[in-house]
């Protein structure tokens, strides 16, 4: 019951947020200089061939793209479709609907994000535990120094380094493209380094905290094997806070891999999002922005729900406990 009300409230908030996102995105797009038609003429074959828009072309574009209906009406027309998941055709990719583009490109971005987060966890957990068990030693400081470096290194830079190393120098891997599983290696590596660093720091501090808990001391005092105590008692409990970090991290990767996608020529959603903004493609920009917002909010909601299950102590919601205490 309490849960249903809680979820209900969150869903209402989610819808309101989506409306806010749509209004903000639309307004910013209207304020941005230039429009799709003019940019199209400058950035494509038109410039090469000296195509100067005749009056009729401009008129045609405006009818097609709705410049002759008032701006608020354009917004309403778009949102009416958006409610039933129909964003209409993209301006730039005129033969395809925005929802089809999302359906095609999102699995690509999501796959990369999932694999990258998995790899990040595989790196972060041992590294974090390793450092925590040697707190304040030279190895701890050394590990954390490397981790901080990794955190500071943007993914597009690591991607560029990896292209240089694995493709240009060693000639082991394709420098980009999307033709087979081989093409997953570089983007997943590039995308996982930053998150691995973030997660390792969380694992370390969470582990340190857990190690100081009385039940761990008690377990050690009982004479349990050190390894068992660390893995079964300390580690398991210290991983719970990771959910709060890994969830949003996953969402951020699913929606924000623009640079890596561009560098490694991956047909993911981030590339479309960036192109939509650059070319003032209203339906595509609105569609992807709303979709990204939705992903982020749903992930956050999921994290909060999962958290409730994972840690029975956490039951308080928005300051009010749903169990009545």
């Amino acid at each position, binding site marked *: 019951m309490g849960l249903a009300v809680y979820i209900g409230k969150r869903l209402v908030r989610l819808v309101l947020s989506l409306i806010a996102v749509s209004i903000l995105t639309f307004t910013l797009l209207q304020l*941005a*200089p*230039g*429009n799709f038609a*003019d*940019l*199209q*003429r*400058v950035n*494509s*074959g*038109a*410039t*090469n*061939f*000296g*195509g*100067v828009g*005749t*009056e*009729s*072309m401009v*008129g*045609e*574009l405006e*009818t*097609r793209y709705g410049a002759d209906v008032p701006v608020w009406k354009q917004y309403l027309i778009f949102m009416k479709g958006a409610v039933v998941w129909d964003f209409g*055709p993209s301006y730039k*990719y*005129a*033969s*395809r*609907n925005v929802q089809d583009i999302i359906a*095609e*490109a999102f699995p*690509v971005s999501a*796959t990369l994000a999932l694999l990258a987060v998995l790899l990040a966890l595989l790196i972060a957990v041992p590294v974090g535990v390793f450092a925590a068990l040697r707190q304040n030693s030279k190895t701890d400081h050394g590990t954390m120094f490397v981790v901080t470096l990794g955190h500071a290194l943007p993914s597009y830079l690591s991607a*560029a380094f990896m*292209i*240089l190393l694995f*493709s*240009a120098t060693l000639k082991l891997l*394709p*420098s*980009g*493209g*999307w*033709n*087979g*599983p081989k*093409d997953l290696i570089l983007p997943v590596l590039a995308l996982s380094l930053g998150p691995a660093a973030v997660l390792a720091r969380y694992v370390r501090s969470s582990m340190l905290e857990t190690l100081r808990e009385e039940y761990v001391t008690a377990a050690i005092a009982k004479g349990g094997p050190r390894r068992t105590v660390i893995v079964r008692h300390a580690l398991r409990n210290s991983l719970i806070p990771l959910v709060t970090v890994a969830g949003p991290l996953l969402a951020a990767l699913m929606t924000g891999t623009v640079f890596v996608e561009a*560098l490694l*020529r*991956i*047909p993911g959603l981030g*590339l*479309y999002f960036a192109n939509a903004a650059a070319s*003032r493609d209203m339906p595509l920009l609105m569609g992807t922005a709303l979709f990204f917002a939705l992903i982020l909010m749903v992930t956050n909601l999921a994290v909060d729900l999962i958290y409730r*299950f994972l840690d*029975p102590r956490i039951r308080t919601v928005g300051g009010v406990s749903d169990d009545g205490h």
Partner: protein
Amino acid sequence: MPPVGQTRRDFLRLSGLTIAALGGSWSLTGCGLFGDDNDKAANGQSTLKIDYVPVEVLDPQVITNGMWILSRGISEGLVTQTEKGDNVQPAVASEWKVSDDNLTYTFTLRDKAQWSDGKPVVAKDFERTYKRLFTPAGGSAGGTTLGANSYQTATGIKGAQDFLSGVLTDWSKVGVKANGDHELVLTLSNPNPDFLLALTHPAMLPLPMDLVEGKPKDWQNPPNYVSNGPYTVTEWVANSRLILVPNEKYWDRDNVKVDRIQVNLVEPSAAATATVPYENGETDLVQLAGPDVLRFQKDADLSKQLEQTENYSILYLAKLRSQHKAMEDVRVRKALSLALDRKTLAGVQPGQEPGVSLVTSRTAGWDESIGIKDDAAEAKRLLAEAGYPNGQGLPPVRLLVGVPDTTLADAIVDSWTKQLGIKASVDHVEAGVYTERRWQVQKGNYIGFYYGTFAGLPTWPTMVGSLWSPKNVQEISLPSDQWQKYQALQDNKNLKPADKTAQLNAVLAEHATAPAREIGALVDKANVEPDDAKRMGLYKQAAKLREEQYLYLPVLWLSLFHAVKPKVHGLQLRAYPDYFYLKPLSVGS
């Protein structure tokens, strides 16, 4: 609620199962993620990999990069360009006749020409395609041309422009007529010596209209896609690749030699990263940027793989409209042109030549008489004469740039400051800002030029009549207040198309400068002049007059560079935006 621990354990078990299931299904569908056709050419097949920019639309009637890959040999028009690109050869049309008045072109279509689905290519296909091209999108149901229409009005087909602007609504009055299956008659309003070459533009490629009308949303997407050229499209992964295979029904199938062409759709990237895939064997043909060209030139092996298309495009500056009157004075504009030091500018990047006129030297009959000679001393004198000795009193001259690379723009500004001692700067803006600002009347003392490049057929009618056309020159010659009036008229949605055109022309007739109008008169006269020598003379006169207005300043003639693997044979580069045809290509060992 059940005891928490139990729920929790159940939850963990359930989520574990879910993740396992998801992972399983992901790995099963893993290949689907990369498209149906991964990097797997069958043994013994010849494969060619070329790089191209991303293709958003596979419709030759929409101005996007997609149209220039289609004309490479996915679709085939009535005629194609010869190896050098200065004439045409038969394609779908096996022969044609031109009437004595040079107004009527009668094409005979090949019996054997077929679409990739086996249907014959008939004259009606062309007529229907051109009707779609000339139909304004707003007025047509389903046949919308989505995006800027690619028709080149300079082609001059009778009634086409009026039909497109809505002035003419009776299709039978447009000069496109199919007589039976194999005869197509195109009629012009004025003789156009470039007409046959103009037919090689992607806008004039035929479309399978039954399919286009039957599946308006899906006809471009394989497996629906049907074309009539040497190759056809079997796979299209947006932002990743196009897969081309020979069109088995093509009339000249025996001369199509590559079994599979993978077109990598790659965003243009900075120098140095673009060549990594090439040197790593991921592509056989790639366009190069300046710094990469230099590196290739210095390398013994790589230099042999370098192909140059000389004098491909023209870098030019166009006068901005401003409230400040300084740039209205032709002496100031001339001073800025003469002070460009084009020789030094040409040395900034490889393959550049001083651009001494808007008409490139590739144009047959070109000579230096229409060109500009750099002259810093004369420039200084002109500037002083106009009332700005050593630039005193002249507001800073701005160069509005909307492309990422400002190397050349910086060099131009450098030239002005050094040669004239004036203040000048590059105003580097995002592309959207550029498109908006370059047509505005600049406020306060903002004066200068916008920066652009053009490429086109190296013929007089194109170079004088179509690029920086008489109409463009007249528009840019308007005083700022009249220009604002003109723009307001263009934006007026309450005017009928015919009235609007008439009123716009009236503004130009009254307020464009006399020489700008004279250029228009000369080109009109040239277009109908039957004598070749006289016609060229008229075009030259117009071109020279256009240079003397200094409204558009030619700066450099630019080359295009490609890197091509030695195993690729038959590449015939032309200075045209599709660069080369796929048909002559073959792959050796």
